[in-house]
């Protein structure tokens, strides 16, 4: 089988597994919704800057929870089975694609809920949407690779946070700046630098992941 069919089958497998149990999606959705609600109950009225920061903190932890499932939850036996039938490149691409899809759905739902509950809408909504989409893209590419490393190292959640946070902080800084621009309704030409920066980081992370994952996968 060539690469694209392998990727297609693996993504289909991930989606099917998710659809049968609906565990990751529902669990993380419940997490996001309850966190937003707790924040609303404790803040009630809120500055727009705090609103933005809260959204990104919630998304950060939601994405760690959602994406870390991709490798950490699978058993060693299943890893071995996939190792025998698929190439590592196909595996990392399919996991990343699946995580991007999952995060996109999550982000859209979380953002709309966040806006409805707090009753705040950013001035430049399309730009804000673009920023959140780029955010979910970067979260999934970075955390997929980090979760692969953490799962191979063998002690899950704790290591995931330690390894992931320093890598994700630069992305978060750029994201918060971009979304701040969108909230203030600044002219879009101001924000293209940040958009380009995020795309460059994503391409960089994907390239490095593709290069390194085959070494990681071979035990």
């Amino acid at each position: 089988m060539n690469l694209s069919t392998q990727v297609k089958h693996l993504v289909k497998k991930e989606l099917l597994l998710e659809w049968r149990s609906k565990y990751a999606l529902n669990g993380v959705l419940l997490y996001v919704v309850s966190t937003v609600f707790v924040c609303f109950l404790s803040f009630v009225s809120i500055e727009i800057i705090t609103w933005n920061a809260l959204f990104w903190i919630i998304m950060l932890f939601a994405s760690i929870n959602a994406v870390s499932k991709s490798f950490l939850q699978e058993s060693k036996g299943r890893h071995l089975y996939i190792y025998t039938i698929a190439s590592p490149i196909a595996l990392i691409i399919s996991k990343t694609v699946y995580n991007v899809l999952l995060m996109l759905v999550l982000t859209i739902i979380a953002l709309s809920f966040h806006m409805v509950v707090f009753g705040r809408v950013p001035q430049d909504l399309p730009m804000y949407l673009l920023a959140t989409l780029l955010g979910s893209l970067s979260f999934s590419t970075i955390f997929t690779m980090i979760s692969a490393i953490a799962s191979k190292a063998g002690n899950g959640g704790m290591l995931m946070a330690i390894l992931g946070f320093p890598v994700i902080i630069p992305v978060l800084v750029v994201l918060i700046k971009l979304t701040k621009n969108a909230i203030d309704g600044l002219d879009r030409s101001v924000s293209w630098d940040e958009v380009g920066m995020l795309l460059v980081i994503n391409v960089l992370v994907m390239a490095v992941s593709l290069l390194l994952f085959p070494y990681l996968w071979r035990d």
Partner: protein
Amino acid sequence: MYKNWWKILGALLVIYSTIAGFLSDVPMLPILHESIRNLYFHVPMWFGMIVLFSVSVYHSIKFLSNSNPEHDLKAVESVNVGVVYGILGIVTGAIWAKFTWGQAWSFDVKQNFAAIALLLYFAYLVLRNAIDEEQKRAKISAIYNIFAFPMMVVLLFVLPRLSDSLHPGNGGNPGFNSYDLDSRMRAIFYPACLGWILVGYWIYTILYRVRSLEKNNNI
């Protein structure tokens, strides 16, 4: 002896730059005054750190291609020395900031991102401690090291250029080159950089040799 010329050169350059750095004339500038002498100590630390981290990545790549445990030892020891250089860079920077910007931690982008870049390498060291099995530890930490390096480059060289900084050469502040790094300072600054890089590399080779002797004795 002829192989050790660079060690002697490094030591001589560091001694020269320290003595000349404290005693030679410097241009009298507002705000900076005599603290401009810190240039000879603060900036070489960062150059040294980057060189050492590059050495470490080089050895991590070598390790992935031929699985020789020596390369793993080299990678971790150069990170150890690089982290010490980074901490010294932050401390000298904080002292300098205390006298020129008013506060030791002025929430400057470069300060923040340098601290995060160090966090990346602390995460690398924590990851190493989390895995017991030697071969596995070497492989996974090499992969994380290569994964973290582009992020460090983004943190230290790309992101600070996107926002304003109190450092010279950022956000409208003129760089040192433009008016105040006159030829007298250059004559000390460049030897200082080269000297500290060589001394850092020397410390790394000594640490590596001690470590490999310890390891071989145990077997």
